[in-house]
């Protein structure tokens, strides 16, 4: 390793320094570019919108990061997301019907959904680890099954009638600033039309980042994270070194489903509804975020931080293009091209990427 790097000429090192951080540089560059070319991009609201719109990507991307580092893929995250939005909405409405206060109903409903949401993940894990079903197939099956069950629950429509409180939480902010009235937390007093209200730090983003922090810690700092890399790098070697690979993989898929479930719950709070295909369109974007973040689909390589950068890159891109009024179609094309370029860049700097991320935890 050190031999080879030493052999690299100086300019080569500069290029690979850039190559290794291209996603971050791209993110900064596109953000700056949009500030100049997209009128209305450089505002507090848009800035926060990038994060709000990015919540599903952060969570699903992180879910996918665990699975992809372990050498697998999880196609079911999008529909586990939808499943969770439906289940939580149904539960909250039912609990309220049974006489619980809105606050209690939301609390219990969400907590129960987090538990229920782990079930598809557990099945994925069993199929992949114990029955040796390829991850692609196992999680596609679970995609079908969770979709079918959510559709059964909502009977072809969507789950609604949620208490007002849920949207207060889902669309709420930590603090508000009204010129002349000062700061207030969580709610703000009614003001006359036209009075500017500055909303600061969305609650859903806070909730998402609490979980992101926990799981980034798990992946980077703990033995569990370390083993995830080991399994992705070489499952046979991991078995021989005494890691319980089967149990570990099960947990990886449960984590994936748990994060997807959380994303589904936040969606439900934000839009006051449960919809079985609500998360469908995030599947590809979340994989793209992971790949932009430097992970390899062959397993063993990748970082949570990289994924978050990848997700932000996509979120800024999408928000920026929306502000510019560019049609959604073109976003597909751009994302497709970025995805391919992401991998090509990794191909050009293979030893760098692997020495950095492979040994990361």
């Amino acid at each position: 390793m050190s031999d080879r790097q030493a052999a690299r000429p100086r300019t080569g090192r500069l290029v690979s320094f850039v190559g290794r951080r291209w996603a971050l540089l791209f993110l900064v560059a596109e953000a700056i570019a949009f500030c100049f070319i997209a009128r209305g991009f450089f505002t507090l609201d848009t800035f926060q919108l990038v994060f709000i719109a990015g919540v599903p990507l952060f969570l699903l991307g992180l879910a996918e990061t665990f699975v992809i580092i372990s050498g697998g893929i999880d196609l079911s995250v999008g529909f586990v997301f939808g499943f969770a939005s439906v289940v939580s909405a149904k539960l909250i409405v039912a609990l309220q019907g049974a006489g619980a206060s809105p606050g209690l109903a939301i609390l219990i409903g969400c907590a129960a959904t987090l538990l229920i949401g782990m079930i598809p993940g557990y099945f994925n894990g069993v199929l992949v680890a114990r029955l040796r079903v390829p991850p692609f197939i196992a999680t596609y099956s679970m995609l079908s099954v969770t979709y079918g069950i959510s559709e059964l629950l909502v009977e072809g429509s969507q789950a609604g009638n949620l208490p007002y409180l849920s949207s207060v939480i889902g669309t709420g902010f930590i603090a508000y600033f009204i010129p002349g009235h000062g700061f207030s937390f969580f709610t703000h007093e009614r003001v006359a039309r036209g009075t500017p209200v500055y909303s600061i730090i969305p609650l859903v983003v806070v909730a998402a980042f609490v979980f992101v922090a926990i799981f980034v810690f798990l992946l980077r700092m703990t033995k569990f994270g370390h083993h995830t890399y080991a399994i992705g790098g070489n499952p046979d070697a991991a078995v021989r070194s005494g890691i319980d690979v089967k149990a570990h993989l099960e947990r990886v898929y449960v984590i994936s489903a748990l994060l997807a479930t959380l994303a589904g719950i936040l969606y439900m709070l934000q839009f006051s509804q449960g919809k079985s295909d609500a998360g469908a369109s995030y599947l590809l974007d979340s994989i793209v975020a992971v790949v932009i973040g430097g992970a390899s689909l062959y397993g063993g390589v990748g970082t949570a931080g990289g994924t978050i950068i990848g997700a932000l890159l996509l979120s800024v891109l999408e928000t920026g293009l929306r502000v510019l009024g560019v049609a959604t179609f073109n976003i597909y094309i751009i994302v497709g091209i970025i995805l391919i370029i992401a991998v090509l860049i990794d191909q050009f700097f293979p030893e760098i990427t692997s020495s950095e991320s492979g040994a990361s935890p």
Partner: protein
Amino acid sequence: MDYLIEVRNIVKRFGGLVAVNDVSMGVGRGEVVAVLGDNGAGKSTLIKVISGVYAPEEGTILFEGKPVRIASPMDALSLGIETIYQDLALAENLNVYSNIFLGREKTRKAAGIFPVLDHEYMHREAAKVLDGLVIKIPSLRSKIKSLSGGQRQAVAISRSIYWNAKILIMDEPTAALGVAQQSQVLELVNTLKARGIGIILISHTMFDVFKVADRIVVMRRGRKVAEKIRTETTPDEIVSYIVGAEAV
């Protein structure tokens, strides 16, 4: 002497790592040359250069005295250079005779126009070669994944024999075998040698080497550190070259 194949001053790098450094060697008709060296000494890399898997950065290759370019495995094969790799490289999902004919499948014309694979022919021809070997394979229609290590080795070897190898390169042919099968393979080496085939044999087993080799080449950290006629050296001397304990 007249070499069948000769390499001169070969250099092969992987990034900054010089896997083969300025190595020259050759093998003549009916001669067995053993290449020895510690793990990572560059033995496999050297023979992959000869068999067209890697293109060397520097150096020349001469075949029957004339310079040749071996840019791909196909080039090597068409010169009559056959290689049995350490990892055998058989398609496990294909059956025995398909592997023997891999890349050079025999076809016939169905209905006079459509080229189709001639399974009968390939099966028959494969049976002929395998009949001459000591190692038996139950059915030539079984897939490689159902065969034992020795049987796989036999398939790999018959593949080379069938294609009239002039030069046979074997990378640790006995490494995965039981004692009985090991001596069968060595016997096979002697048979092929008697047919005038030039053989390059990589091995870690001193016993094998001294049993069949005519000449011994020792590599260490990518360089050739010794070349000895077998009858003029001893296992002890060779070992000292391999580990680099003795500076001669």
